[in-house]
């Protein structure tokens, strides 16, 4: 299983999955933060974004993710002040410019994004800003790998670990997982040769019955990661349970703001606790994220569900497996036996 959505795109775009010999299959992992942000959290975001005194800021990827009713674009078109930001700290500037508004940032992501989101909370507290808060839905890779390995449905025998996540966190924390489940974890880049080399290293471990952590991406990262970034992340966040869309709650699998940052926690500041969610009955994105099914197994893929009209987040995000299959549509042709043009997601977010 390749963990990172960027790796999935590289694999599907370059047809790497078709180059591999029989018996070697790459299944697509949960490493798309937009895809695993739970519906409940998206509905909370929408409820906050609809408030008249709120400026709701988000990464562009999140705007088209469907909630129980509509998406952030819909809310914007109905008059909500929804803004795409490049960096979380842009919210500081927006807060200064709009002292009579509450600026809320949708702080999603994996470990790669955590240092940026942590800095927003840190700077806001340092400056004593009263009109900035974060709606935090942060998830962590290692507990997700453990959850996949523990599942009775699991068929994953080795992992291509997420390169840029490990550029921040290093790969030391993957060693206990590899040892406990005796499974190879090869931290890999996302270029075609990275993927192929990572796959080869994984297979060599399997053939020699090893289960270790190896680093294919040594030109970018080391075992320690970025200690400076980790320090601020742990000053702002603490580890706790998180719900993953399509997967469910995984213990100790995400970040929450520490108590000293409670004044910046949008979940505490806004009364959005009771929201009834409604998930699509057709979408199989949960099974895709767990590596049990592939996009072509979904009856809605490419018909009811497209990047223009997605049923699930895996079709929305530029890193989602369904978007990758749709963009490089040959799998659709194979699955349906029809000639379907290859579409471009067009900078999908």
């Amino acid at each position, binding site marked *: 299983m390749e963990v*990172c*959505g*960027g790796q999935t*795109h*590289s694999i599907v*775009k370059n047809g790497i999955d078709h180059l591999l010999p029989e018996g070697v299959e790459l299944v697509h992992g949960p*490493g*798309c*933060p*937009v895809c695993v942000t739970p519906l409940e959290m998206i509905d909370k975001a929408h409820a906050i974004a609809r408030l008249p005194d709120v400026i709701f800021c988000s*990464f*562009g*990827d999140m705007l088209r993710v469907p909630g129980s009713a509509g998406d952030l674009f819909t809310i914007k078109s109905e008059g909500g002040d929804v*803004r*795409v*930001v*490049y*960096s*979380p*700290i*842009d919210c*500081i*500037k*927006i*807060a*200064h*410019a*709009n002292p009579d508004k509450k600026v809320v940032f949708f702080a*999603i*992501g*994996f470990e*790669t*994004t955590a*240092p*940026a989101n942590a*800095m927003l909370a840190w700077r806001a507290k340092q*400056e004593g800003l009263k009109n900035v808060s974060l709606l935090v839905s942060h998830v962590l890779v290692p507990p997700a790998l453990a959850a996949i390995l523990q599942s009775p449905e699991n068929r994953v025998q080795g992992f291509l670990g*997420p390169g*840029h*996540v490990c*550029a*921040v966190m290093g790969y030391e924390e993957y060693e206990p997982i590899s040892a406990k489940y005796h499974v190879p974890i090869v931290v890999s880049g*996302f*270029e075609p040769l990275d993927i192929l080399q990572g796959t080869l290293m994984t297979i060599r471990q399997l053939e020699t019955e090893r289960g270790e952590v190896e680093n294919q991406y040594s*030109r*970018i*990262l080391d075992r320690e990661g*970025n200690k*400076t*970034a980790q320090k*601020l992340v742990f000053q702002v966040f603490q580890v706790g349970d998180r719900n993953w869309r399509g997967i469910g709650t995984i213990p100790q699998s995400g970040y929450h703001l520490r108590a000293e940052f409670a004044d910046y926690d949008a979940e505490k500041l806004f009364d959005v606790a009771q929201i009834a969610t409604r998930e699509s009955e057709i979408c199989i994105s949960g099974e895709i994220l767990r590596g049990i099914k592939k996009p072509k197994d979904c009856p809605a893929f490419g018909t009811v569900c497209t990047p223009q009209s997605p049923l699930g987040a895996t079709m929305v*995000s*530029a*890193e989602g497996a369904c978007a990758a299959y749709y*963009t490089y549509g040959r799998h659709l042709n194979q699955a349906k036996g029809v000639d379907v043009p290859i579409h*471009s*997601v067009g*900078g*999908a*977010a």
Partner: protein
Amino acid sequence: MCLAIPGKVVEAFDQGGMRMAKVQFGGIIREACLEYVPDTKVGEYVLVHVGFAISKVDEEEAHRTYQILEEMDQLSELMAPVVAEREGQAPGFRDSATGTNGNHRPETKVTRGKEDAC
């Protein structure tokens, strides 16, 4: 969202106590925070994720990675709107390098060049 984009540091400056930089990605120049790679010098290449440099890379690696991200349509985050300094000028956000509030700086606009990627 889980990928970082390599770029060249073309200018470093202080902004309200934060070490910042202008970083060039192909034909696009954007600001990035250098707090997590504080020893970065002008002319070096860094991997940037949502406005934060997370590690250094060498020039060859940076060019190759950028090209692949471009081919994969994974550069859209660079096109997110720029929040102008003047919209939210805070007392602590004065540019110590120039003594100005930074409104004149070209990095507050997305600039496009021949090698424009997006």
